[in-house]
């Protein structure tokens, strides 16, 4: 029996269940990771198409393909789906679930049933958000930030959208809790803290942010609902409330949420670069410390989103200063990645190309973030397309590139098959060109004064908007090439070996795809001196 079980991978080992039940009742961390991935990819396509709709409207001034109300709903639903359904859960829920236990030498996460329950909550949250689109009142039109006082005054269908975000937050909290406990309690013998792979460290930092910050947005969203239906007066000035309080509460969560998105991305890059430079990461300890420093300092910079809200100048000074502090650990990481490449025996495979793309786009996003962190320049470009461009360089260029880097890095392990590297490279190049053509003009447009979140604009912005929309089409074409190539690779690609990239962390020591409980015997690392990263 044990010999047969050892030969079966987790796809084949269905534990006596058939069809979809083998998935939705499975507590195997790998199946749960894949369920997250399939859900997220479907909604990613939806979010991309909504984004394309926004850019199509902006190809010319005035009404092009949709009116103001539809435009407001498009960018709101695009934001809600992309933020709450894709980039926040994306890397931790997919790759954290699939690889964290294997990387630390465990058979599963600490609470497998809670893990499955988190996925159920995730699905219930998505369904609740979807209800807001198709029921009375129509899709919400506030933007993904649900700013007060508009969010409790609009006649659109806010309640299910806010409730959906609240439920998705719970899913995130439980996943974070599960990963923290797993790392504390289930590391293999000899897997000491400072020997842990850097991706595991990034998931650990992320877990703490999920646990600390998400409850605040949960309560804030409930306060919005209470304000709307019970007229309590938290945020409504007419009832003695303070709309800026909402912005504080919202950003106390939503800025750390940016780090929930970007920390695992940094973890992925910290795995990929040493593997393809074929040497250990430069300054492992510095990378670990900077990971935790970002998690901690990133918690205290939220009000840089509010410099023009009317808050005190003292707060503007304090939050601007703290914002500049958070750039330090981020810069340490970039330095260490580049130093790892220096004099490495570099093997330019697809995951590394994505990682290098990440470095380039993340740097542009990071530097333009400094413009926004300084009060004087922020006042000039606040609520312009400059902010949209900066945000997308960080989140899509950063987290998105890391997401595709992770997919190309770990897909051979997940499915036991290799994708077509030529088409993967074509897909990356198309994406990269399209991305920059789409978003870079938005920096210029924003600097020239084009506001965001309007379906119309002045004629003087027309030229660069045409370029930007053209970039959107190129980028979407690239995304479809990438996804189709990955799907084809997962289904029909060549058989992948156990360790196609010569990686050194534990996931490369198990078969591709891994067996049900990952290891026949829990690995003993007490005699191994080096950390695997």
């Amino acid at each position: 029996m044990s010999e047969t079980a050892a030969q079966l991978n987790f796809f084949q080992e269905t534990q006596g269940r058939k069809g979809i039940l083998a998935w939705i009742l499975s507590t195997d961390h790998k199946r749960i990771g894949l369920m997250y991935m399939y859900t997220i990819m479907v909604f990613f396509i939806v979010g991309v198409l909504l984004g394309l709709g926004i850019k199509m409207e902006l190809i010319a001034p005035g009404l092009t393909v949709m009116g103001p109300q539809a435009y407001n709903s498009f960018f709101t639903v695009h934001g809600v789906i992309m933020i709450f359904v894709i980039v926040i859960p994306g890397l931790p829920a997919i790759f954290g679930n699939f690889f964290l236990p294997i990387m630390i030498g465990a058979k599963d996460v600490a609470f497998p049933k809670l893990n499955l329950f988190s996925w159920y909550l995730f699905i219930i949250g998505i369904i609740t958000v979807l209800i807001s689109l198709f029921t009375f009142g129509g899709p919400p039109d506030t933007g993904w930030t649900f700013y007060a006082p508009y969010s409790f005054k609009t006649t659109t269908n806010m309640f299910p959208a806010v409730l959906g975000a609240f439920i998705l937050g719970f899913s995130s909290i439980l996943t974070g809790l599960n990963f923290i406990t797993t790392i504390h309690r289930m590391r293999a013998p000899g897997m000491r803290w400072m020997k842990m792979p850097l991706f595991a460290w990034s998931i650990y930092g992320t877990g703490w942010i999920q646990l600390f910050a998400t409850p605040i947005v949960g309560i804030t969203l409930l306060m919005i609902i209470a304000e709307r239906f019970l007229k309590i007066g938290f945020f409504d000035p007419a009832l003695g409330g303070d709309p800026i309080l909402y912005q504080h509460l919202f950003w106390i969560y939503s800025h750390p949420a940016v780090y929930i998105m970007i920390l695992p991305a940094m973890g992925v890059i910290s795995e990929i670069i040493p593997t393809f430079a074929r040497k250990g990461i430069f300054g492992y300890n510095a990378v670990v410390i900077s990971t935790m420093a970002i998690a901690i300092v990133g918690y205290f910079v939220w009000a840089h989103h509010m410099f023009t809200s009317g808050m005190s100048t003292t707060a503007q000074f304090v939050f601007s200063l703290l914002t500049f502090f958070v750039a330090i650990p981020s810069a340490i990481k970039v330095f260490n990645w580049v130093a790892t490449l220096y004099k490495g025996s570099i093997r330019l495979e697809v995951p590394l190309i994505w990682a290098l793309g990440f470095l380039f786009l993340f740097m542009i996003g990071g530097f333009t973030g400094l413009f926004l962190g300084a009060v004087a320049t922020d006042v000039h470009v606040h609520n312009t397309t400059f902010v949209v461009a900066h945000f997308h360089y960080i989140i899509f260029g950063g987290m998105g590139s890391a997401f595709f880097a992770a997919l190309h890095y770990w897909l051979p392990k997940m499915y036991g098959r290799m994708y077509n590297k030529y088409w993967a490279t074509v897909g990356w190049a198309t994406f990269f060109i399209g991305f920059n053509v789409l978003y870079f003009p938005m920096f210029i447009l924003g600097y020239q004064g084009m506001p965001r979140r309007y379906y119309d604009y002045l004629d003087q912005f027309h030229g660069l908007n045409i370029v930007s929309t053209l970039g959107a089409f190129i980028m979407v074409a690239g995304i479809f090439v990438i996804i189709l190539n990955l799907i084809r690779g997962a289904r029909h690609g060549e058989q992948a070996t156990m360790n196609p990239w010569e990686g050194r962390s534990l996931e490369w020591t198990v078969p591709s795809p891994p067996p049900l409980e990952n290891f026949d015997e829990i690995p003993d690392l007490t005699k191994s001196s080096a950390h695997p990263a």
Partner: protein
Amino acid sequence: MSEHKTHITSYTTHFMVLLALLILTWATVSITNINLGPYSVTAALLIACLKATLVLLYFMHLKFDSKILKISFSAVMVVFALVILLTFFDYLFR
């Protein structure tokens, strides 16, 4: 699970904590009769914090939990305090 130690708190301790909570509730109500001006909210919050501490320590067993749980919980409280402090850089200086 064998390493997991359980601690049974005596009825007397539970009763004393309950009594303290009731007295503090009475104090919260009573203090509204005294005009403390801007400090009335501070007083109410201080009493609420005291009550929460008692519940956490005794009813939720934090007093008898392992060091790592105490540290984790303390970290949450420190973060929370810092968040309040930073928010007041806005409210106090607006």
